[in-house]
């Protein structure tokens, strides 16, 4: 799943949670999925940041 797709799914999950109307099981399931997606997105972002720093050091300075 790409970063954009993951963020889109996350948006859906949060919107569903915010709307309420989900039962406990569903809430837990959505929260778990959301947390996982968030974690993977954060990881991807941190990696991207690291890559930019590295490129800076290699090519620019």
């Amino acid at each position, binding site marked *: 799943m790409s970063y954009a797709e993951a963020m889109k799914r996350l948006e859906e999950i949060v919107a569903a*949670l915010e709307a309420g109307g989900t039962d406990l099981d569903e809430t837990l399931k959505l929260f778990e999925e959301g947390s996982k997606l968030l974690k993977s997105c954060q990881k991807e*972002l941190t990696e991207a940041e690291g890559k930019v720093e590295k490129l800076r050091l290699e090519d620019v300075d």
Partner: protein
Amino acid sequence: MAGEAVEVGQFVALARSALVNEPYLSNAAIIGELTKFTLARSGHTYFTLTDNKGSIDCVQFGGNDSFISQDIKEGMKLIAIGGIDVYVKTGRMQFKSLRIQPVKSIGELEKTRQELIQKWREDGTMERPRKTAPLIPKNLHIITGADSAALADMERLIADRWPNFSYTVIPVLVQGNEAPKQIVRAINYAQENADLIIVGRGGGSPEDLWSFNLESVCQAIIESKVPVVSAVGHESDYMVSDMIADIRASTPSNAIERVIPIKDDLVAMIAQAEDRLDFAIDKLFSRRNEIISNLILRLRAAPMRGISNAKLGQSKISSRMNSAVERFFMIQKNRHIGFDSILNSTNPTRVLERGYSMAVDKDGNPITSIVGLKQGDPLTVVLKDGEVQTEVKS
């Protein structure tokens, strides 16, 4: 006395030998007006040259052709080249001419000059493309009078402008009958090695300068493979050579000023050009550097902005999710609290506390109806502070 007398023939022969052995007389060029002449059948020419101080009979053996071809007429000024001789038989002194040359008057010379200019105007020679002098001549040849003032001026000026400048001098006669031939020969010789030729002389009478109006000299200049500078006389002298040369200098000194650069100026010019080039390159690079460092800054900031935006988005969504879930649990908890209080209010033990008791069967289930009860069934009665065992009596 008779014994001491010399025979006439012997005397004249002696006189002749004395004269012809005198170098100044035996090898001379004489100039005078042609007062009379005879073209003999034999082909020999007999003529007389005269001026206001003297006169001499002349003979040129086989001279008729020369007189005819040069269109010699009585009254012309002639130069006869040859030597003195005495015709022993008659004792008559005469000049034995080998070559004659008419001396043209300035008027005649000027006419020839105008004709030459006219001819070269018409055939396009005057307007032909000129060769340009090299910036720094590597093999300059100067054709001028040996030990002349003009040469001294030029040499001094060269040394001033460019110390130790190397060049070649070809000394020639610049006036007189031999001058044109020598100048032509020098021009033809010089162009084998030279990359620039200066031909000229200092000031003088129109007759002195006339070589530079002659077709032969000018033709050699026109045909030269290397550029020729004409540098004749003073500023006011305007020769045909000046008109047809690649470069016209007003004087010999002016020729040097026109073709030999001042070394120090050239060096300074090169240094200046170098500075300007350096400056231009520096400027170019610093401008490029500026653009690049600007781009670097922007490039550095750009992905970070994207990343920080993404981070912001993530933290927003994360907090939204957390608060949604928290709210969910809060709602659930609140419902629990409600249930709890209801449950609490309906707890049977509370009823017991108010003085009621409750009968339960052996499994602990409350007995709420008499239906299904038989005589002798065991009952447990639950009271506020304990249980008692009993049984159904009726």
